[in-house]
């Protein structure tokens, strides 16, 4: 639960100043710092980003009566409904966060294994 909250809050704040791909760095770093399994790392990275992207997009969508969401849905997805686009955005962000989280966790395991094997030899 903690990595998810940290990823969500940290990425939300950073994205106001840094490019969108800072979400990958955040997910990688947090999962490198703290995560148990690969699955959980992916899940934390995915949800941490996706939840923020979904709610921020939803707020903008509702505030602006969805004028642009509808036009972009027509342009990108050839549909009149805004819902697929409201789901697609967090999915894309989530995948970026998820894979970055997984990568962070995997790198950590490699380094941890190296450290323990070094210890054993000593």
């Amino acid at each position, binding site marked *: 639960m903690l990595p998810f909250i940290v990823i969500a809050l940290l990425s939300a704040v950073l994205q106001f100043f840094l490019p*969108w791909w800072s979400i990958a760095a955040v997910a990688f770093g947090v999962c490198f710092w703290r995560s148990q399994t690969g699955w959980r790392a992916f899940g934390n990275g995915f949800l941490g980003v996706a939840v923020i992207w979904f709610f921020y*997009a939803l707020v903008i969508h509702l505030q602006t009566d969805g004028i642009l969401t509808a036009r972009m849905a027509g342009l990108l997805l050839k549909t009149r409904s805004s819902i697929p686009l409201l789901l697609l955005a967090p999915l894309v962000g989530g995948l970026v966060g998820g*894979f970055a989280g997984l990568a962070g966790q995997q790198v950590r395991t490699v380094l941890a294994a190296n450290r323990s094997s070094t210890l054993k030899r000593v």
Partner: protein
Amino acid sequence: MKIAIAFLCCLISIGLTVSLNRQWGVVPAFGRLLSPFEGFWQNAETKDAASEQHISIKGTRDEVTVLFDDLHVPHIFARNDYDAYFAQGYVTAQDRLWQMEFQTHAAAGRLSEVIGERALELDRDKRRLGMAYGAEKSLAGMLADSATRLVLEAYTAGINAYIAQLKPARYPIEYKLLGYAPEPWTPLKCAFLLKQMTQTLAAGADDLLMTNVRQKLGAELTANLFPDYPFKEDPIIPVGTRWDFKPVKIPSMPASTETDSSFALNWPRHDPAIGSNNWAVGPEKSATGYPILANDPHLTLSLPSIWYQIQLVTPTLNVYGVSLPGAPGVVIGFNKEVAWGVTNVGADVLDFYRIRFRDNRQQEYWHDDKWKPVRRRIERIKVKGQPDVVDTVLYTHHGPVAYLPDEKPFLANIPTGYAVRWIAHEVDNGLKTFYLLNRAKTYDDYVTALSFYAAPAQNFVFANAAKDIAISPNGRFPLKWRAQGKFLLDGTKAANDWQGWIPAGHNPRVKNPPRGFVSSANQFSTDPTYPYYINWEFETPDRGMRINQRLAAMQRVTVDSMRRLQNDVYNHQASTFLPVLLPRIRENDLSENQKRALQTVRQWNYQQDTATVAGTIFMEWMGHLERAIWGDDLPESPGRPMRFPNASRTLQLLSEEPDSRWFDDVRTANRHETIQDAVTVSFQHTVDSLAKQHGPLGKTWAWADHKKTGVRHLIPGLDAFSALNVQVGGGSGIVNAAGRRAGPSWRMVVQTGPQVRAYGVLPGGQSGNPGSPYYLNMLETWRKGELYELLYLQSVPQKHPRIQSTLTLTR
């Protein structure tokens, strides 16, 4: 193993992130585009809330207050001219930045920079036409005058002040989709925008087509089928108006002007829906006793809207009207004392001269019995993702050599190996005209303002609270012999050159004519008594005749009756053709479906409204009929593009020469076709092809559904940002000129008087942002033919029910 997995995970993560962060051809950077923090979501806007925004900005000289009304029209209150134009630049950029830049990129031949190789031919065409060469000359003209120089510099500084504070997250959506960023604005871009207007309205030329026709038919038949004045016309300057000047000497026509030419060209047809209406009724016809002025310029119906409404107020200026995003000031509008509007003249101000080079090095050309040097201009075209393309354009004293013999030209109206002599290559200062009109108080001010204008020539209509009305087909017109430049010209003879200019004071003009109104609808400027030559062909007289018939009949005119006339859908052309055509149809030859279609047409009241089926049949029939009469005699072949005589000449043939040889189809050796054959067969084809398209005769043939008026975004194929199948009547040749792709791009009616009142509507909205509630909010009002009252403020009001938000610019 673990290392390999970790490595793979990193690779996937980095690969995914990087590929979502870059543009792939036409596919945008999806990660960035979909991010709610910097993607398209950031372009979504709400209605102007009751808010006060203070922005501190370098560049203004004093405090400027901008009030936005309920239609998002900015009302700019400044203490000096500089600040007013600075603020105009700032707010125009805020609403229209992408459009202003895209249009000037297009004019400058720089689209390849943005969309890549696909635009290369388009760009090259602009360079060869000398758009940059012309823009540089115009800029010189505008900077030479201290008033227009200040206006240009202030407007540019305002746009750049907006761009400077713009974060990438707030770039207009089109930048995000196409993957580029705005660049600083320059005064040259304003010149490019005005050149683009000149190209749209004054670069059409049938010289090559006419030359091919003359080669095919000979001079005499060509003169008969393509006369220099139509058999029925109602010119802009009323017949009988006296010319109050002594004409200068007109050059005489040289003995031989012939050239021969034949090129493999592809013809993009001129859209006759590009035109305009304007008129003014005098005090005796007006219900209030003060003149009323109306204007609706017809251009390609596009989004973001072509025009941007604005009010500019300083201690010495208070003008309201529409501006072109990218050009300072108001182009069509009104102030406390006067109102004015424009329609296109359609003067022949572009001619082609065949160039004879000394040799293949193309360094000298023959003119006036001398070898003269060719100047070279290097054009560097940047192409996205590819090396630059360098093009050398050859310049003669006529102008740029648009194309050389061994190259494939892009536009059909530019012949290979010919130099282009074009009004847009002259030093001019059209901005000065609008600068002065914005401040005009009297009829004399209007005349002075017009004297500075060059191109594209416009019919300037005028009305004021002092109860004057006037109209003038106005621009800088070359002094030519009659019909000079109707055909391609031999560029070696000095006698074929343009021989100076018609003096500005001799441009046609009429003030307070006895009939009590003035009007224009792109028809002939004058009758043949005018001593100078402007062009041999203008738009069909149908809109002009209908407007004049209505205005002549109307009394106690009000704003509302003018609004109704702007939305008039009476098909004048049908009312002249059908009485001639219908008696010629051989009914016995018709199928059941064709007979029912004929019955529908017979019962028609000539109203080209949304539901009419007869109107659909008539409009389609005209094309089939012209092909039936002229298609065999003037066949298009790939190497030799032709054109048909105009509708006026066709009508004359049908009504006065029923036994003419032109009705015979020369492709059938053993048969002699008559007028009945041409009329009947073309009618059958019309009905059959409509049945194929829409099924059996019925509601599916309704005009609006058939016509499919579309207001489209400037990027082709961006349907999601466009309004398609707009249910609106009218069309080409009709007063309400809403055609398939072009139509009234602004409608305005101004009631002059002690308290001026004005009304207007755009087929779109004030904002260029598809994510704004002001992008298309006026379309429905436009479609219904209604107008909004325009909010003309005298001073910053304490509180006004229509004012939504306030923007203050301070130093």
